[in-house]
C-alpha cells in the first residue's frame, strides 16, 4: 500500500499551485498543514484524480492513478473542502446514492450507512433533508460519505471546518478509530487537528512541502528557538514588528510574550518547549487557525 508522488507540479496559467512535490504515503495518518493558498487543496484534488498534474507522476503501488481510473477510485474516500450535496435528498438517500456511485451493493450500502450514521451521531437525522441540517451535521455527513466504501486512501480537505470544538474532538476520535490500515491525508490550517493523531505532518508552503516529520521531530527542530519573556506593555508593538510572536498575555502593566526566534529576543528571555503551533508560526510567519485557540 503505497501512494507515491514524484515531482508533482500543477500550474494554472502562470501560477504554480503545486511545485515539485515528491512524497510517498504509506499506511498512517498524514497531516497536511499550511496556510490558505499553500496548494493543499490542489495537491489533494490531484490525488483524487480530479485534476491532472502538469508535471510529475502519482502512482498507487507503482501504477499511475489516472491510468488505474475506477480501480484506484474505488479505494478512495474524499471529503472536499467545499463539500457539496443534493439539498433535496434525505441524509439516507444521499448516502445510498454515494454508495451506488462508489460501487457498493445495496445490502452493503445499507449496512455501511447504518454504521456510519451511528458513528457520526446522525442516526436520528437519517430521514431529514440535507438542506435542513446544521453546518456541523452536513460536515459529519461528508465524513460519512467519504468512509462509505471503507477506503484504503482517505483524503480529507479541511474536514473540521465549520465544526464546533466538541464536534472537532469527536471527529479526531472518530478519525483515530478509522485510521487503521489505511492512508489518511488530512489537510488543515488548524494545528491541533493533526498534532495528536498524525503519524507524519507535512508543512506545505507556496506549493512545496517545506518540512515533514512527526510532531516531535518538527518541534525538536525548534528547540532553543521558542522564548518566553516579559516586557512593558508599550514595547509589545515593537516586539510584534520585529519577531514572530506566538502569544501575548497581559500581566498588570506588563506583557508576557511567546516568541519564536533563533536568538533570545531579550536578555531575560527563557527558552520554552516548542509546540507545533510554534513550528507553524516559524515557517508560515502567521498563527495557525483561530479555532485552535479554543481547544
Amino acid at each position, binding site marked *: 500500500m503505497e501512494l507515491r508522488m514524484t515531482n508533482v507540479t500543477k500550474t494554472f496559467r502562470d501560477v504554480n499551485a503545486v511545485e515539485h512535490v515528491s512524497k510517498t504515503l504509506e499506511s498512517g495518518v498524514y497531516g497536511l498543514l499550511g496556510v490558505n493558498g499553500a496548494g493543499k487543496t490542489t495537491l489533494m484534488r490531484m490525488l483524487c484524480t*480530479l485534476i491532472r498534474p502538469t508535471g510529475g507522476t502519482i502512482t498507487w503501488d507503482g501504477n499511475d492513478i489516472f491510468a488505474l481510473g475506477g480501480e484506484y477510485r474505488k479505494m*478512495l474516500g474524499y471529503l472536499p473542502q467545499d463539500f*457539496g450535496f443534493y439539498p433535496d435528498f434525505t441524509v439516507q438517500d444521499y448516502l445510498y446514492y454515494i454508495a451506488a456511485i462508489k460501487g457498493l451493493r445495496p445490502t452493503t450500502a445499507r449496512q455501511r450507512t447504518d454504521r456510519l450514521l451511528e458513528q457520526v451521531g446522525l442516526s436520528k437525522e437519517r430521514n431529514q433533508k440535507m438542506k435542513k441540517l446544521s453546518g456541523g451535521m452536513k460536515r459529519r455527513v461528508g465524513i460519512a460519505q467519504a468512509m462509505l466504501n471503507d477506503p484504503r486512501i482517505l483524503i480529507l480537505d479541511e474536514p473540521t471546518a465549520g465544526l464546533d470544538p466538541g464536534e472537532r474532538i469527536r471527529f479526531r476520535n472518530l478519525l483515530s478509530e478509522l485510521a487503521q490500515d489505511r492512508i489518511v491525508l488530512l489537510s488543515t490550517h488548524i494545528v491541533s487537528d493533526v498534532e495528536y493523531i498524525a503519524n507524519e505532518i507535512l508543512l506545505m508552503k507556496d506549493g512545496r512541502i517545506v518540512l515533514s516529520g512527526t510532531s516531535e521531530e518538527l518541534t525538536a527542530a525548534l528547540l532553543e528557538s521558542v522564548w518566553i519573556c516579559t516586557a512593558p506593555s508599550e514595547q509589545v508593538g515593537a516586539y510584534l514588528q520585529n519577531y514572530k510572536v506566538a502569544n501575548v498575555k497581559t500581566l498588570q502593566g506588563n506583557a508576557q510574550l511567546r516568541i519564536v526566534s533563533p536568538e533570545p529576543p531579550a536578555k531575560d528571555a527563557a527558552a520554552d518547549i516548542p509546540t507545533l503551533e510554534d513550528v507553524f508560526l516559524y515557517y508560515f510567519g502567521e498563527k495557525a487557525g483561530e479555532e485552535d485557540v479554543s481547544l
Partner: protein
Amino acid sequence: MFRYEIKKVFARTGGKVALLLLALALAAGCWMAADTYYVNENGDKEYGAAAAHRLRALQKEWSGTLDEEKLRLAIGEITALAATPQAQSQDVKENNIAFGRGQATYGIRGLLNDAFAVDFQTNDYYRAEHLTPAMAGDFYANRIRLLREWLTDERGNAYYRYSDAEKAYLLRQYETLETPFSYDYTNGWTRLFEWYPWIAMSTVMILGYLVCGIFSGEYQFRADAVFFASRYGRDKAVAAKVQAGLVIVTAVYWAMVGLYSAYVLAYYGADGISCPVQAASSYWKCLYHITIGQMYVLVVTGGYIGCLFISGLVMFLSASCRSAVAAVMTPFVLIFLRSFLEMTDSNVIEKAMGLCPDLLLQMNRTLCLFNLYEPGGKVIGAVPILFALYGALTALLVPTVYKAYRKGRDS
C-alpha cells in the same frame, strides 16, 4: 444510480413545478383542441363532447370514396343551401340555421374551396357555393392544374424558388396521388394535429428545464468533487445520468402525447385513420402520399426525435458549460430560430430554415411545406431529411454528452 438521478430531478421544487406546468400545458392543449361547436336546427351553438358527437354523426354520412358522383351531390347540396332564404338573409340567426344545415358537407366544402380556388395560394370560403355539379369532374385535376400554374407563373416566387427538377418532382407527387380517394369525418385527427405543436413545444421547453439540471446539478451544488472522485464517477454514474435524461424525455413526451391523443380522439372519434391526408382540407396541398394514420405516426415520431435532439443538446450544453443557464435557453432559441432567420433574404438561409429542428415539433405543418432538397441530384422533401438528420445527430449527441461530462473540470 439511475433511480437517484431521476429522484434528483423531481425531488427539487423546480422539478415539481415543471411537472405542474406540464399538466397545465396538457390541460390547455386538450381544452383548445376540444374547442368545437355544433349548430342545431334553431341556429344555436352547442358545445362540448355531445356537440362533437352530433357533428361526427352528420359528417359521417358523407364518408366513402370521394368520387365524381359524391362531389356532384355535395356541390348540389352546398349550392342549394346557399340559395335558401336563410343563407341569403341579413339576419345572423337565419344564417346560423343555414350554416347548421351545411355542417354535414363542411369537410367536403373545404376541399371544394381548395380544388376550385382562383389560384394555388388563395382560399375562398364561398367558392363552393358558386360551383355547378358539372364541375365535379375537375376536382382532382384542378389540384394538379393549380400547382402547375403556380410553378410556371413567372410573376410568382415559386417560379424562381424551385429548380426544374424540383418542379417536376412536385408535379409528379401531385399526379401520382391515387384518386378518387377515400373521405371520412377526420375532425379528431385534424384537431389533434392542429394543437399538437403546442403540446410538443411546451413539452420540449419544460423538458429542457428538467434535464439541464441532471448535468449541471453537481456543479451547482458543488457536489462534483465527490461525484468524480467516486469509483463510477467517470463512467457508470455518468452513463446513469445520460440514461436518466433519455428516460425522462421519453417518458414525459410519450405521456404527454399519449394523454393528449387519447383525450382528443376520445372526444371527437378516431375516424378517417386510413384516408389520405389530402382528404382533410388542411392537408389538401400536402405533397406526401400518406394516410392520416401514417401522418399521426410521423407527427408523434418527429416530435419525439425533436424532443430528444433538443433535450440532448440541452444536456450537452449543461454538461460542457457546467451551467444550466445557457442550456435552459436552448429550446427557446431553437424554436424561435426560424422566426429570426425569416428576416433574411438568402436562398441558402431559406434552405437551412427548412431543416430547423422546430419543424420536427410541428410535423403537421412541415408536411404541408414545399421544402425540397437535391442531395446527389435527386429531389427529396424535407421530411425524410429531417428524420434522418436529427435522428443521426441525436444518436451522436448521446455519446458526446457522456464524453463531455466524464471529463469533469480540470481547473
